[in-house]
């Protein structure tokens, strides 16, 4: 048996919250300080991408990091200093969020042609191209071959100036099957190169074969490991086979559901909206099947206790509520985890802030209405309310009266916390509506593709990848393209230049 660590209220997320709170205290001091004191503005992370939707940093996520304008918030970097100097000059500080948002486009426009870091490239060119406008050593790079540059390498085996089908074939075999192609396979594939339809067909066939292998789909396989950061397995509280010392829930069911929804003709939005409970029937070959509701009785203790009509995919499983909600009445950690793991938005980095009016109400008397905390909690708390009816450790069930159990520990007002909440500025009545909004968002599609991109291409989308990355996540959403089927998206991904160019 292995000894894992239980991530509880004192875990990494709590530390992140403490660190964020400390940073926000500095921010609050800045907001309240005299004119000229540096101030970080959370809305800027969202507004920037509305102003520059084609900027590289906006291709993979609708938010930017604070470091676009700051060294360590609220201290500004060279670019941030130029923006600040042009932001509503002459207007008394601090600016309200509304005044700040209104003034930001003109301030950014005013510094587009400037060169904050003096590297000879304008701020605008750096922002669009994906380099850092405040760092002289960072300049836009080009993936294009220059005239006269050799176009092949390794004795003509590889085309270094464009998509190379043989290279893609080798990569697919290694990435998805877990082995290199044999000489015979490589030679047979090279024979097909004169015919584009032939090599495309062979490449697609190879991908399809590999997508069904234990290497990709099996226990501890590639898909399994892709889900690690979302499921966050801890062996000490594992139930079921190879149970830990305090068996509370079994993460294997979560891995099964993740793999099931990422294979075949299945809608990956089920990660947030699905109601199935999936069993791994065999690992060689890997096969799965949904468990009929009448067959759930003996399995509830390990995997799923929530009634089918109250389930929201991976974020209401027994494991997810056990490790995130635990005993918390207003489980902010749970909402933040779902926001980060499935939408790619990390509130600890001030990403995805959509402050709601009159929030945070602080129903559980945690002091989150203090100005230093309210900056994030005005988004986080309404994001969390839909999770408040789902029990964590032990019960792991939907309970409309759940908050009554917390009056003694969290105060009388805790029962006033609504089930309705907000996500992306949109009001939702419960977690089912929350998960629908989340699953249909751009952020969800971007996060799904981002995970696969990093896995397959081997790095995060770079400046040269912006067009292809955008095509992938928009295609994932489009009913006439991938229609939320990840395997269809993968077939297109292996045909991108980002993937197939040596």
């Amino acid at each position: 048996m292995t000894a894992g660590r239980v991530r509880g209220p004192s875990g990494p997320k709590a530390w992140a919250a403490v660190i964020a709170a400390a940073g926000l205290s500095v921010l609050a001091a800045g907001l309240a300080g005299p004119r000229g004191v540096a101030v970080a503005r959370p809305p800027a992370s969202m507004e920037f991408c509305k102003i520059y939707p084609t900027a590289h940093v906006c291709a993979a996520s609708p938010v930017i990091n604070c470091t676009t304008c700051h060294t360590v918030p609220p201290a500004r970097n060279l670019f941030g200093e130029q923006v600040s100097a042009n932001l509503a000059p002459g207007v008394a500080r601090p600016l309200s969020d509304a005044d700040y948002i209104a003034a930001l486009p003109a301030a950014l426009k005013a510094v587009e042609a400037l060169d904050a870091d003096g590297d000879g490239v304008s701020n605008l060119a750096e922002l669009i191209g994906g380099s850092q406008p405040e760092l002289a050593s960072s300049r836009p790079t080009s993936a294009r071959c220059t005239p006269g540059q050799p176009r092949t390498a390794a004795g003509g085996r590889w085309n270094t100036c464009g998509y190379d089908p043989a290279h893609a074939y080798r990569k697919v075999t290694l990435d998805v099957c877990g082995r290199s192609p044999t000489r015979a396979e490589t030679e047979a594939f090279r024979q097909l190169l004169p015919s584009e339809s032939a090599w495309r067909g062979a490449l697609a066939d190879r991908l399809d074969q590999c997508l069904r292998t234990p290497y990709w789909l099996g226990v501890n396989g590639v898909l399994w490991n892709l889900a690690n950061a979302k499921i966050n397995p801890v062996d000490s509280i594992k139930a079921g086979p190879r149970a830990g010392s305090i068996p509370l829930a079994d993460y294997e069911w979560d891995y099964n559901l993740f793999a099931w929804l990422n294979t075949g003709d299945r809608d990956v939005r089920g990660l947030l909206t699905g109601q199935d409970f999936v069993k791994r029937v065999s690992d060689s070959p890997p096969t799965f099947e949904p468990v009929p509701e009448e067959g759930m009785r003996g399995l509830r203790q390990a995997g799923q206790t929530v009634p089918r009509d109250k389930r929201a995919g991976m974020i209401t499983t027994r494991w997810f509520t056990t490790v995130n909600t635990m005993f918390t009445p207003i489980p902010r950690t749970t909402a933040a985890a779902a926001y980060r793991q499935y939408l790619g938005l990390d509130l600890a980095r001030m990403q995805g802030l959509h402050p709601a009016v009159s929030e945070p109400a602080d129903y559980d008397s945690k002091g989150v209405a203090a100005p230093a905390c309210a900056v994030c909690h005005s988004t986080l708390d309404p994001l969390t309310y839909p999770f408040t009816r789902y029990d964590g450790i032990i019960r792991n069930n939907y309970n409309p009266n759940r908050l009554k159990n917390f009056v003694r520990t969290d105060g009388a007002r805790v029962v006033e916390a609504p089930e309705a909440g907000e996500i992306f500025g949109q009001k939702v009545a419960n977690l089912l509506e929350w998960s629908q909004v989340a699953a249909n968002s751009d952020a969800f599609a971007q996060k799904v593709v981002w995970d696969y991109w990093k896995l397959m291409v081997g790095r995060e989308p770079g400046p040269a990848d912006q067009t292809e990355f955008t095509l992938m996540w928009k295609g994932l959403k489009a009913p006439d393209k991938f229609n939320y089927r990840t395997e269809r998206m993968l077939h297109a991904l292996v045909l991108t230049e980002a993937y197939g160019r040596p």
Partner: protein
Amino acid sequence: MRLLALIALLALLTAPARPVLAQEADPTSPDPRVKFKDGERYLRDLAESLEIPRSAICLELSRYDCADKAFRIVLGGVDPYDIRIMQPLDQASLASPIAFDRVALQVCSNRVAKDKADPATAVLFKPAAGRPDAAWRAALTDRVYDRILRRDADEAERQRMSAFLQGIEARTGRSPKGQADQTILACFALASSAEAAFY
């Protein structure tokens, strides 16, 4: 001990003063995207190429699988349950190249030991009938390129490998044992190459 002796020998042979494997750089991609093969893929490839079961190809202390146990994280693996490493390290650790070389050398030594034990099914090591000559070196070169890189050597590569083998002959000797050592080092030279490690 024998492994250490081979490492010491290799260090001597590949020191800057003896650039026997030096070669001209290939044209580079303007935006290279090579990926590390990781320990598991690497050993799967070698297991298939060298005809050794994956479960037996590389065991530290004769017990711990090199990719799955001994060097799991430094060779690009994950361990979400015990040490909470959910994704492969973004950057190779300082120990990664050391572990990689150690695995390559162990695999090559493993194969040559099997070849010596059962010459009828030898894959890499086939002793010369008499003194090892240019033909023996050429045949060895063909075998290691075919098995490890899964392609033919080009002419320049043949010449480099031949020069390498000739260069070490003074230290290994010409005996069957010396030839076996040359085979291990020829195998190691390719198994530890960038072409074998990255894709």
